[in-house]
């Protein structure tokens, strides 16, 4: 019952009746089996049927799956996802911190941003970004109502790829902001107090104390957002940007008059990427939820402050995540309950 090992010996085990394993006839669940068999049969029927249905045109699927245009489009989809997400995460953190700022002006700006970008459909936003050069024909840098110092044409400065990234990122930032805000709010209030009591400023408290601890809560939903973003890239056709996976497949099928196999090809690629992301997310979540288990056991003795340690060294600042071996030489064992 000492330190990190505490989780492996649940206290409930001690109160169990006897050590002898129970011998009893297991409860049977015959209907589970029936349903399972039924579902497998339906699935097999569907697969066999699909294999011989000409509309699916499997040879075409095979032909286009690794078509160079398609694989290039898949790469562009990845680029769109990565660029937009990176910008969205940075912007989201800034917005979340702004929303929690004591400064009412800053707070309102963040709220307004969220209101606009979360309140309108991303497809509409992307379309508007596509038309931005009609609204603002040139980008001028300078003072209002005076000859600008620098001026360039919007069309030349922003190509459709850039506009697609901007559109996706700004929309996503609104959602990221809420995720980050939830993370920041999940950190115990005592942490902020301790930091402030030490004379640390609000920004130091945020960056050094609150943000690092909120990562555990922020990471899993962010993984979700990445997967979601990968699929949302298919909407950039609204800009119109046409080199990503879905639009490219549609364009090819427009030439071949054979849309179904290309939709299957696109779906396979999307599924491939989301599968990779899901695996990645699984490991990230495991990494960041580490210690949450012993957070429960520690909570009783360490109180709120210590309890949150479950997150152990998230940012770690290059520190190896030491899970120290249980030490028995200490007088107080952290496994014991703390009733005052």
């Amino acid at each position, binding site marked *: 019952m000492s*330190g*990190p090992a505490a989780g492996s010996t649940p206290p409930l085990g001690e109160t169990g009746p006897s050590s002898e394993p129970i011998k009893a006839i297991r409860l049977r669940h015959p209907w589970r089996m029936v349903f399972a068999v039924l579902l497998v049969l339906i699935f097999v029927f569907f697969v066999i049927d699909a294999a011989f249905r000409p509309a699916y045109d499997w040879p075409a699927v095979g032909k286009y799956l690794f078509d160079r245009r398609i694989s290039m489009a898949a790469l562009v989809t990845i680029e769109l996802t990565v660029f937009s997400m990176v910008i969205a995460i940075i912007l989201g953190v800034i917005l979340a911190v702004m929303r929690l700022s*004591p400064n009412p002006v800053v707070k309102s700006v963040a709220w307004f941003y969220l209101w606009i970008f979360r309140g309108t459909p991303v497809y509409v936003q992307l379309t508007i970004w596509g038309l931005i050069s009609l609204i603002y024909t040139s980008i001028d840098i300078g003072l209002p109502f005076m000859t600008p110092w620098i001026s360039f044409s919007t069309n030349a400065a922003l190509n459709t790829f850039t506009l697609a990234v901007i559109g996706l990122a700004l929309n996503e930032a609104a959602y990221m902001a809420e995720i980050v805000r939830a993370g920041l709010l999940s950190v*115990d209030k*005592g*942490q902020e*107090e*301790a*930091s*402030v*009591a*030490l*004379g*640390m*400023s*609000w920004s*130091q408290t945020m960056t*050094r*104390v609150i943000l*690092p*601890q909120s990562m555990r809560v922020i990471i899993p939903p962010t993984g979700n957002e990445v997967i979601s973003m990968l699929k949302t890239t298919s909407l950039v056709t609204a800009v119109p940007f046409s080199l990503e996976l879905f639009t490219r497949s549609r364009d090819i099928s427009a030439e071949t008059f054979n849309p179904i196999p290309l939709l299957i090809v696109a779906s396979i690629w999307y599924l491939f990427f989301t599968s990779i992301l899901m695996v990645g997310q699984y490991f990230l979540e495991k990494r960041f939820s580490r*210690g949450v288990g*012993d*957070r429960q056991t*520690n909570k009783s*003795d*360490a*109180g*709120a*402050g*210590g309890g*949150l*340690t*479950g*997150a*152990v*060294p*998230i*940012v*770690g600042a290059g*520190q190896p995540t*030491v899970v*120290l071996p249980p*030490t028995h030489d*200490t*007088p*107080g*064992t*952290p496994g*014991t*309950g*703390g*009733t*005052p």
Partner: protein
Amino acid sequence: MSGTTATGAASTPAPMVLAEQVTKSFGSHEVLKGITLEVKRGEVMCLVGPSGSGKSTFLRCINHLEVLSAGRLSVDGELIGYREANGKLYEMAPKEAAKQRRDIGMVFQRFNLFPHMTALQNVMEAPLRVKGLPKAKVEQTARDLLARVGLADRADYYPAHLSGGQQQRVAIARALAMEPKLMLFDEPTSALDPELVGEVLDVMKGLAKEGMTMIVVTHEMGFAREVADSLVFMDAGVVVESGIPSEVLANPQHQRTQAFLSKVL
């Protein structure tokens, strides 16, 4: 500054803490109803009383974690949270308030150590970030402080791997790292297992002996009797009774004090 001079008490006129009619309301609920008290330099004052009596709130007012509704509070002759000029009070900028807090150490009931930092990093954080002192020097001081609270060998442990008593001692070291002139303890042993209380109280006794000015909200009457110079009994937001701990504890004058002490002693 660090309070290492044991006999600095009598020589200076201004008290370390001076509270005059300190009042604090949360909405319509008045938690503090005019607290007036004085803590001299080097004095150890214990605040006792039933929960909800406003002890913790008063303590938090002293380092401006709570803003007063009325009254005045000054530490070391300096008004807390406000600047006075031409007979008017000016609200302090957060930066100035932060500067005042540097000199006031606070220890919490729930320790509130930074869980993502080791014990050593916890102690080093504020001197590094707030005072901007060189890292090598800060680390040396931090190690010395951890040794002082008996945790030299736990420097590289994360709070999760320390017992409650050890965590609280790290928290004390963390507060001391800023070389405060006043230490506030908000029920420092209330969240601890009974067998861990002693190690924390020992560290606090040591501090008191070195002449640190301390205000301790506690239920440890033994500590109050042994270490404190004065004892203040609060109930329902007012100071009911105060005096020399041994006298108040042995012979409480007020009925409410008697009732409370009969339950805790």
